[in-house]
């Protein structure tokens, strides 16, 4: 605090006040973020040693395990295939969802569109529906005996795709997330479209640009920062998929209990009771997420600095 710049400074006095304000957040962060993470790292380095037949109160003792939990977590084929499934699901979901969100945001921004606030509201509505409920509703709609889609296809003499088995499952899962997330991202992009100065469009229109040209050449480049933000958050959310596959699971036998990496951690910790290996796997997932996030941010910053 040698000589802070005099401008834009609200606090000149002692440095104690801001720390008072930060107190509650610091306590909560320590208790519910920092401590659990440290504990997970500690647990990941431990394991249980069973003496003899594992009977008696002192038969199970916790011992130092070094990195053995990590080596087994990383070489576990289920974690690898779970990550692969989530990557495939994300590759279907994220471009579709953001493409649709951008598309609808641009449509909302077209002059002389009717039912604007109605469509905006209805497309945003699924955001209010919990993932569990959304998956339940879509899960029923995927059942051939219930779905209106299958009904219509049968009337037309065709058979519908099987969305609850095999590769159809990826489409089924991605559709639930697209349904739930498009509206939210649309609003974020639309809001930043509205913040652009209207004179730019006027000038372009005077120059003879069509609405489509304005959208492609002016609007999309100018909302690029919002697209980056929505892409980032969608990517993180995709990696964390848990509630949706858990809900679809009772409806189909082709959803394994380790479909996503998070489901595997849950199964290891609470069904198989191996908290040590679950801790190691979750540390690996956290590290991969952080690595991916910072890599992404670095890439974006580099392009932003080098590009313009």
């Amino acid at each position, binding site marked *: *605090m040698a000589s802070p710049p005099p401008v834009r*400074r*609200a*606090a000149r006095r002692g*440095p104690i*006040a801001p*720390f008072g*304000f*930060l107190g*509650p*957040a610091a306590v*909560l*962060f320590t208790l519910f973020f920092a401590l659990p*993470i440290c*504990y*997970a790292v500690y647990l990941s380095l431990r394991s249980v040693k069973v003496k003899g037949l594992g009977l008696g109160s002192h038969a199970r003792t916790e011992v130092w395990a070094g990195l053995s939990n990590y080596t087994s977590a990383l070489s576990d084929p289920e974690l690898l295939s779970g990550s692969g499934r989530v990557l495939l699901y994300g590759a279907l979901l994220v471009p579709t969802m953001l493409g649709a969100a951008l598309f609808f945001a641009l449509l909302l*921004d*077209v*002059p*002389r*569109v*009717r*039912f604007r606030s109605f*469509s905006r509201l*209805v497309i945003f*509505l699924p*955001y*209010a*529906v*919990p993932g*569990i*409920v959304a998956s*339940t*509703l879509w899960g*029923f709609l995927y059942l051939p*005996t*219930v779905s*209106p889609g299958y*009904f219509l296809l049968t009337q037309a003499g065709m058979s519908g795709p099987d969305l609850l088995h095999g590769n159809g499952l990826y489409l089924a899962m991605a559709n639930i997330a697209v*349904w739930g997330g*498009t509206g939210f991202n649309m*609003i974020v*992009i639309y*809001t*930043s479209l509205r*913040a652009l100065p*209207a004179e730019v469009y006027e000038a372009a229109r005077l120059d003879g640009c069509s609405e489509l040209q304005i959208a492609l050449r002016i609007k999309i480049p100018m909302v690029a920062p919002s697209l980056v*933000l929505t892409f980032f958050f969608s990517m*993180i959310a995709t*990696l964390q998929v848990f*509630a949706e596959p*858990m809900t679809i699971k*009772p*409806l189909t036998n082709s959803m394994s209990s380790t479909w996503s990496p*998070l489901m595997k951690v*849950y199964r290891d910790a609470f069904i198989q009771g191996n908290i040590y290996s679950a801790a190691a796997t*979750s540390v690996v*997932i*956290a590290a991969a997420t952080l690595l991916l*996030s910072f890599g992404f941010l670095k890439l974006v910053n580099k392009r932003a600095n080098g590009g313009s």
Partner: protein
Amino acid sequence: MSSTTTAAPGRTLRPSAPAPGGTPGNPMGPPRRRTAWTPTLLLLLGAVYCLVPLVWVLTAATKSREELFSTFTYAPGSGFWNNLAELSSYRGGVYWQWMANSALYAGVGALLSAAVSGVTGYALAKYRFRGRSAVFNVLLAGVLMPPITLAVPQYLLMSKAGLADSYLSVLLPSILSPYGIYLSRIYAEAAVPDEVVEAARVDGAKDWRLFRSVALPMMVPGLVTVFLFQFVAIWNNFLLPYIMLGDDHKFPVTVGLYSLLQQGSNEPAMYTLVITGALLSVLPLIALFLGLQRYWRVDLLSGAVKS
């Protein structure tokens, strides 16, 4: 993310946004306001897609067990009141307990969350101190933590503290919202002018009083947004209560419905209960959503990256 620390001072938060391209008002009535039909129809198509499952649950909840799998999907049935009565009497009315629990977790959690986010965001926006950006970055890294990496050790630590399977075990971890702090900070930067803070300080206001009587009233619209976002996030949360709770009388409605659905896979007679329960569980959120529409300051979100 650090670029946001130098927020553009003149950023417009809510653009007055004239209707884009709208023809200037003509006293003789609008000249020729041709509707842009193609975009309108495409938007309505999107709206229909979003309504498909919601209209389905509305009609499906009116069907009796026999009608559910036999009549046309969107044909209304005759069993709604019966379904409602069955759901209400299921295990002594535990469904309504779940709804009350959700309201408790989300209401109290979001309120505390908005309060903590407010003071933290204000401190990060309006004070210059050593480690300020470090604090902010550490908090933001919290957003990136996969919830399971937190929930498993959180559960084990809660058990050690004797708090597992309690209301507090779900409520306490929901209070700190890195996202809420992020929004509050942006909002404090934009809505609380430094000059006003400076003037209050010259008048002798101490830090806490300055925050409470000067900054807080200015931040209320932003904090309402934080409350709403956090309310929806806690209401919709599944993983944390699913891991923390064993006693189904403490379940929020998401975990409760999940337990019904799992039972339904063994006895399909439960499906009508699941569907009726799903319908009732989305009604409060949709009502909240429609009623408080004008308080959703989503512009905060997109404004956040424009500096």
